[in-house]
């Protein structure tokens, strides 16, 4: 680990002032960043501990919910309002990591966690994300867990979060604060595809801090679910996951949300599938068409071709199950 300074931010202004310094990184629960420091992958010069800030979950006047970036994953998943109005989010969080990690990890930190690509984690390997322009050893190497959608020759890594897949489906917004003021952006726009600059993973500007995630009033609570396929029953990242919400009107699909995890550099909102579902009857053949539409552009690497078929099966299976579910709210 490279030596670093540590400061605990007393308030938001203090955090932003510290965060503007060269080499500063905000520190949430540290469950990912500290690992990366110990593996000599991340070398922040200054850690700005923001775990004391933004720790509330509040109702919004519109009927949504605003989750402070410092709220621990366990607290979000256990919040009564989240469980009743946004069960998809609670399920997704509980599908991730371990109880111990969720107790430490924050909402903001979860969003900004880095990929699990083995070559990103090994500083003896080439990685364009770690060392832009160095090349990518994953393309020819072990890429079983890598992206099938939206990848580039420069980077085939995936975003590992479960929580973020639910946030993408729920159409959350993210509040960012910088020294020049605050802004809100759609969650779907926060993470970037790798393109030629895989080292730039989000739309965050230097020094900007995530302070909250806001959920809109519609939590898809009536029919929603998070499904995750992984190598073991707990404490493993998704091979493929699906966050899905469905509204049915007399057997016809109304609003529908579908997002995929484990398939791309960002939580993958399945717009093509959604378009193929809206206004159509909720039948297995329609679900299959929608899955095909979403996965048509998928491109396999050496080891991850199975994800295309697996994603197809998870999408169809999840939608079939949702369509059969009695409304719970």
């Amino acid at each position, binding site marked *: 680990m490279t030596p670093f300074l540590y400061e605990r931010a007393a308030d938001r202004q203090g955090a932003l002032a510290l965060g503007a310094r060269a080499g500063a990184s905000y520190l949430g629960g540290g469950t990912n960043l500290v690992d990366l420091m110990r593996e000599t992958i991340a070398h922040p010069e200054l850690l700005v501990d923001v775990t004391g800030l933004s720790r509330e979950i509040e109702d919004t006047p519109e009927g949504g919910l605003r989750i402070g970036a410092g709220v621990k994953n366990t607290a979000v998943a256990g919040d009564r309002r989240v469980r009743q109005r946004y069960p998809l989010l609670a399920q997704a969080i509980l599908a991730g990591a371990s109880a111990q990690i969720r107790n430490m990890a924050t909402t903001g930190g979860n969003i900004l966690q880095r990929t699990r690509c*083995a070559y990103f984690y090994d500083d003896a*390997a080439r990685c364009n994300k770690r060392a832009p322009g160095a090349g990518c050893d994953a393309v020819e190497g*072990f890429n079983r867990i890598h992206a099938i959608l939206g990848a580039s020759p420069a980077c085939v890594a995936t975003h590992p979060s479960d929580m973020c897949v639910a946030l993408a489906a729920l159409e959350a917004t993210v509040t960012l604060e910088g020294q020049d003021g605050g802004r809100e952006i759609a969650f779907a726009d926060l993470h970037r595809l790798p393109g030629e600059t895989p080292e730039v993973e989000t739309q965050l500007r230097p020094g900007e801090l995530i302070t909250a995630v806001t959920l809109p009033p519609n939590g898809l609570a009536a029919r929603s679910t998070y499904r995750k396929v992984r190598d073991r029953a707990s404490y493993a990242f998704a091979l493929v996951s699906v966050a899905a919400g469905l509204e049915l009107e007399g057997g016809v699909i109304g609003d529908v949300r579908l997002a995929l995890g484990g398939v791309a550099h960002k939580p993958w909102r399945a717009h093509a599938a959604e378009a193929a579902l809206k206004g159509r009857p909720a039948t297995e053949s329609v679900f299959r068409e929608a899955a095909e539409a979403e996965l048509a552009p998928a491109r396999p690497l050496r080891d991850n071709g199975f994800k295309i078929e697996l994603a197809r099966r998870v999408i169809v299976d999840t939608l079939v199950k949702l369509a059969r579910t009695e409304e719970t709210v």
Partner: protein
Amino acid sequence: MSVIGSPVSRVDGPAKVNGEAHYAGEFAPKDLLYAATADSTCPAGTIVTLDTRDAARAPGVLLVLTHLNADRLPYQEPAERVAVDPVAGAQLRVLDGPAILFSGQPIALVVARTQAQAEYGASLVPAPYDADPPAKLRFDPALAQPTSEAAAKKKRGPETRKGDAEGAFARAPVTLDERYRLSREQHHPMEPHATVAEWTGDRLTLWSKTQWVGNERDEIARRFGLPPANVRVINPYVGGAFGSSLRTWPHVTLAAMAARRARRPVRLELTRRQLFTFVGHRGQSEQHVRLGADPNGRLLATICEATGQTSTYEEFAEPLLGPAGATYACDDRLTRYKLVPMNVNTPCPMRGPGWATGLVAQEMAMDELAERLGMDPIELRLRNYAERDPMKDLPWSSKALRECYAQGAERFGWSKRPLKPRARRDGRDLVGLGMATAIYDSGRYPTSASVALLPDGTALVRCATADMGPGTYTSMTQVAADALGLPLARVRFELGDSTFPPAKEHGGSTTMASVGPAIQEACGAVKAKLAGVADGAPITDFAAVLRRAGLDRIEAEASAKPDDAMKTHSINGFGAVFAEVRVDVDLCTIRATRIVGAYDAGRIVNPKLAHSQCIGGMVQGIGMALFEDVEWDEHLGRVSNGTIAEYIVPVNADIHDLDAIFVDTREPLLNPLGVKGVAELGLCGVAPAIANAVWHATGKRVRNLPITPDRLLTA
């Protein structure tokens, strides 16, 4: 009443729970310094330059050792290699020259005031390499070479023949011809390997994680050219090892080198990533199995050609073909064993060494043969039941495998199993049942132990053995209490110190059979001594005897060694393992929902510990069958998933109903306790039983273990 056979709870349990148990890396002599290594990132070649200036200037750094300034150690050859070392080749000499033999080889050692300072210093050592000669990075059976003469002397290949297996195979009416692969696995004990080294003049004390303090003393003495008496190795507790602490690895040398140069005690603890490159592994393997049978299922030919993996500098050959030689009766048999030398660190024994690996192929092949014959898998095994060891052509000392099949099947509910695959469904799950035979060869070593009767009324028993988790502390306390006629609470057993009476390796399931009899002998000897001064007082009153005689203790040491039973008989533990799996019909995720093992391990000294051993083996077998897979990058010559998050081992949520039963047997020849050993046997057969259950559930044969969802999906 005998306490042997009682389910006594671990006598060391409270110390482990409340933190009084100190593991190797936790010993902290005064003025302790901390070390970390910089490791090569290139798999083969030569270090061109090594610039240690930045590391030397880093905060807290006191010493940087490289091949340019480290002492050249003598590395004296042993008179005879111990069984835990590779059969041939020359061990890695750390910091001895610029040659790189594998990626992850330590190239510099940084000593600092704190662990973090040492690690940071080590991260500042750049090393350009000349990558010549080209590295050997592919595990390709076509590149394999037959095992050496040295291996052959230990019956580890290159070939064994009986009859005309190839001819019999060609003529057989029912045949099977398949290849089975098992991924490289890592031991990954909870406790990472660590050594604390302290010199006093030319005497060295090592607190070091090891399964064999005596060998570590001798090995380090040879490496440094010291009399063995000048080296003391202490290791009272081992947080799991599974074979990874049998050898004395290079980090032990590094710690001692650093402490000598720094003139202060030094600790070197490996990181989780370094466990992949410092301390061995179960190498990749491929086994080509050909079986021929008549329509009644009688085996006419068994041929197993195995390819293993070794390093370029040592030959690690293991008894991988043990099962192919010893399990089933068949007159025409052939085994071949080859190794692919690669630029990797040398593999080493991992639980059930060789045998567990060999059983994966053999027991999956037998299941496939049963399928072709339309026969129940147990029935096929019974029709080929070996009444003698077929390869050694020796009688078994004891064998209750039939009882294992019968009692295991009964406990598991095997009789309700449909013969056809994909015949049972429960909701989304396909349900399958599979079984496999387990076999492991038993052994015993000469061992010594001492007993001291103390004035406080307790007996102190000592032996330089180890307890990596099976419960040596507890079972040996039981043996001693029984032999002395004392309650357990008045017996204390100490181990893990090379100054104690000598034992051989704590491995190969030999500890109970070896150490137990030595303790019995020592107890007998001390009782005889006591009788000489006791005037007929009962042994339980020895405190009073000591007082009257004005003695501070009565002590005796004794040895016990095997007779020629291992030459006249084949001595093995046996078992039958049954597994139920549930496979999600669409998503291809697999859960091992139920496992039952029935074992003939001889007499069971402590049923609670033995049960725990066996269900632990089942957990490990679930890992072998479904999860554990070291991803070896052939381009980089590196392990790509070198963390405990990405190297998948079972977690609690993967573990369901596990049970082990022991058939009532007593081994008549190996040792007076009647035991055959449990630990290695507990892993044997588990993975193939699960793999066979996956076939039974799905109708798909996945012959590459682990069976991950993607492999099953694309099968």
